[in-house]
């Protein structure tokens, strides 16, 4: 037990000082047993604050430090660095008492909040008095990266990493990479053809010697820790050998099964054996097991008969691939908000009510109509098209509370593209606000209004219904204060973006957090936006929040650079707060061996007592809670420390 603890209480400007009497906290702590120094300061994390701390540690020969301030997720590292580098004391002798997030910000009664802050700080003092000096454990790293999701985010991150010399395993659930971006016709605000800018990157993925692409594959299990993960990847049987497939289309011509085409969002159909689109990567046909008549030559087998290259093999089986990797980037993207949720707009009921992605396909030269905007119901050119923004977004009562961010821009793009295709048509846009922050974005929206005469109506639509072949849109224009009724030929909904099913699955497999809307949670909203809370797992793209292509590319490159930073070191430092066995108390009962989630404990010779592998141990403490004889403890979170903290919390 240490004897010379120092306490540093931060005002955090007024953040803490407004509700907690910090001066009193510092004074009372100064009278605690074993505390030889106690001081409050307005901003402990500032340069002068840090210098004061370093000086006090040296001058008072402190052997334990408590900083009473914000959450340890924010400044634990800062103050531990000050303790070690400035104060010359081992960084593990420093503990944080969180009196901001867990106290000052959640209470308004000053005397009560001060009482609580006192208890929290006293508990931290009790804890630090038992802390030991520890040195991080060096662990070698695997210089290989797993990227989950082959949309633009995953593609960009993979290429950046591969070009930096790292091996990449890119896992994609679908038969091709490209994600949603490859479905787009043109991109705002420059109207670049989406396929023209993405296809070269897709080809590069398939040719790059450092990238191993696994399509129709999903990550099923992740174990290990930062620098040394192990992934179990399940890959579906594809039944077509990509090396021998000549992409001749003979097989699809004879295939008798017709199913809806995902690439065209259901506007066209495909066969059970198919290639998603001509530029798909990997460039091969693939057999959709769920649609095929039976993978049995007796049942059908037409495709195998006509394949001259002999690429089709019904005996292929799913594979389980195990890979060792050092870091993971999750780029699992978004889905559109379910159309079944928007019954009032008639989606799914009327063929001429489309979502944004379907309209993209209609505008695209590679789309179902060869680039002509035609009504899906009767293939006539629509003369009046209504675009409805915020379909599902910004509606906390019934749908998503958040803004999907990209819809204002893509609706302006849709209206512009529509006018390019149908110059004598009229586009109407119902909007709540126009949010066009971004380089060249506002100018683009203005151009759509002025040059393409898109009529913007500020208000919401209450209902869409069909009347003699027309879609009747009932809405309101809040600027003129009048109800509006438009006889439209086609309605396009800017549906909200929501995290994809793959995002939910990945979060579950990787055990990383999601926010209240289901998007992946970043470690810090401002300062660590591409990292998850778990070390070695990074985030990119719309899986983290709705974002457009430039932002997604930015985040993907940022995530890649974070991975490069991580894996550039020869070894990573593993936290030394691991379990330690008191051999005098251990009876070798094996309770901890069975409880350890990481298999880090075994019984060792010669005394046949528990033995901890420091590298595997993550310091969760599950072992200490099962040990009947209190023979195992996690360093610096030992049971004696928790008992002392309980006493401090209860004022005894």
């Amino acid at each position, binding site marked *: 037990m240490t004897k010379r603890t120092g306490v540093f209480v931060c005002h955090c400007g007024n953040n803490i000082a407004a509700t907690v009497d910090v001066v009193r906290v510092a004074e009372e702590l100064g009278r605690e047993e074993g505390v030889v120094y106690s001081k409050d300061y307005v901003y402990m994390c500032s340069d002068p604050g840090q210098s004061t701390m370093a000086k006090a540690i040296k001058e008072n020969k402190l052997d334990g430090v408590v900083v009473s301030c914000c*959450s*340890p*997720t924010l400044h634990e590292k800062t103050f531990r660095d000050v303790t070690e580098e400035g104060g010359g004391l081992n960084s593990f002798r420093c503990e944080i008492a*969180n009196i*901001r*997030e*867990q*106290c000052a*910000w*959640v*209470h*308004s*009664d000053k005397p*009560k*909040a001060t*009482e*609580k802050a006192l*208890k*929290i700080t006293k*508990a931290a003092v009790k804890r630090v008095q038992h802390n030991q000096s520890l040195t991080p454990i060096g662990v070698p790293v695997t210089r290989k990266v797993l990227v989950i999701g082959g949309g633009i985010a995953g593609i960009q991150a993979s290429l950046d990493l591969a070009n930096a010399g790292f091996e990449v395993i890119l896992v994609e659930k679908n038969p091709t990479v490209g994600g949603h971006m490859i479905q787009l016709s043109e991109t705002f605000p420059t109207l670049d053809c989406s396929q023209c800018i993405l296809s070269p990157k897709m080809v590069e993925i398939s040719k790059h010697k450092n990238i191993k692409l696994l399509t129709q594959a999903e990550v099923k299990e992740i174990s290990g820790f930062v620098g040394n993960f192990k992934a179990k990847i399940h890959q579906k049987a594809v039944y077509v050998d990509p090396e021998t497939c000549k992409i001749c289309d003979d097989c699809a011509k004879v295939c008798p099964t017709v199913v809806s085409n995902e690439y065209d969002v259901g506007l066209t159909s495909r066969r059970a054996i198919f290639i998603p689109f001509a530029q798909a990567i990997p460039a091969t046909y693939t057999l959709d097991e769920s649609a095929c008549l039976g993978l049995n030559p007796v049942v059908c087998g037409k495709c195998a008969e006509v394949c001259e290259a002999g690429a089709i093999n019904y005996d292929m089986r799913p594979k389980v691939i195990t890979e060792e990797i050092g870091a993971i980037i999750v780029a699992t993207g978004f889905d559109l908000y379910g159309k079944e949720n928007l019954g009032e707009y008639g989606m799914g009921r009327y063929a001429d009510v489309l979502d944004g992605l379907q309209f993209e396909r209609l505008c695209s030269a590679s789309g179902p109509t060869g680039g002509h905007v035609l009504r899906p119901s009767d293939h006539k050119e629509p003369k009046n098209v209504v675009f409805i923004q915020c379909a599902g977004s910004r509606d906390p009562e019934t749908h998503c509370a958040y803004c999907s961010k990209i819809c204002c821009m893509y609706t302006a793009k849709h209206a512009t593209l529509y006018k390019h295709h149908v110059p004598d048509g009229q586009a109407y846009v119902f909007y709540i606000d126009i949010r066009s922050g971004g380089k060249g974005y506002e100018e683009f929206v203005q151009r759509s209004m002025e040059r393409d005469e898109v009529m913007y109506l500020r208000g919401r639509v209450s209902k869409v219904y069909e009347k003699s072949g027309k879609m009747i849109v009932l809405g309101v224009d809040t600027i003129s204060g009048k109800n509006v009724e438009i006889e439209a030929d086609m309605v396009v909904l800017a549906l909200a973006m929501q995290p994809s099913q793959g995002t939910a699955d990945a979060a*579950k497999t990787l*055990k990383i*957090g*999601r*926010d*209240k809307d289901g998007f992946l*949670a970043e470690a810090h909203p401002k300062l660590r936006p591409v990292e998850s*809370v*778990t070390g070695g797992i990074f985030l990119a793209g719309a899986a983290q929040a709705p974002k457009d292509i430039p932002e997604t590319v930015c985040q993907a490159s940022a995530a890649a650079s974070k991975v490069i930073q991580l894996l550039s070191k020869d070894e990573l430092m593993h936290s030394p707060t691991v379990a330690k066995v008191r051999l005098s108390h251990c009876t070798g009962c094996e309770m901890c061996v069975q*409880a350890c*989630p*990481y298999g880090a404990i075994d019984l060792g010779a010669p005394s046949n007592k528990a033995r901890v592998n420091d590298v595997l141990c*993550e*310091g*969760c*403490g*599950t072992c*200490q*809670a*099962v040990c009947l004889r209190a023979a195992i403890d*996690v360093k610096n*979170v030992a*049971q004696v420390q*928790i*008992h002392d*903290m*309980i*006493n401090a*919390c*209860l*004022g*005894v």
Partner: protein
Amino acid sequence: MAKVEQTAKDETGFEPKIVAFLCKWCSSAGSDLAGVSRLQYPSNAVPITIMCSGSMSPMFVLSAFNKGADGVLVSGCHPGDCHYLKGNFYARRKIYLVQKLLQFIGLENDRFRMSWVSAAEGAKFAQVMHDFVTDIKKIGPQTRLKAKRP
């Protein structure tokens, strides 16, 4: 939210002492989110951050009651979402047994509670705190396990 605090007030002026064991990865992060969102809740519970709800020894609970706690809360990641893979499953089983034991000893059921609060559930954390304090205020001070001190 200030209203919430007011309704929790008791005429007798009894302010329960509560110890809240929060796992580092979910519930402690959830309490941080409650802070960042400035959600107000009663200040009775003092948080102790532990690495995982699975490291929660039954001794901690008994010790807290022995030292005069009126309520003890353990909060962890949702089942299946444990940062340490399966720690909260251990916690769930163990806590069930501790609850049985406490019942046997004659302690009111509501004094010992487990909750699942993820890092995204700041509002839930505030609600759990508020509900727990309200319930304990209804039961009154805990004397069954409190050590007699001179």
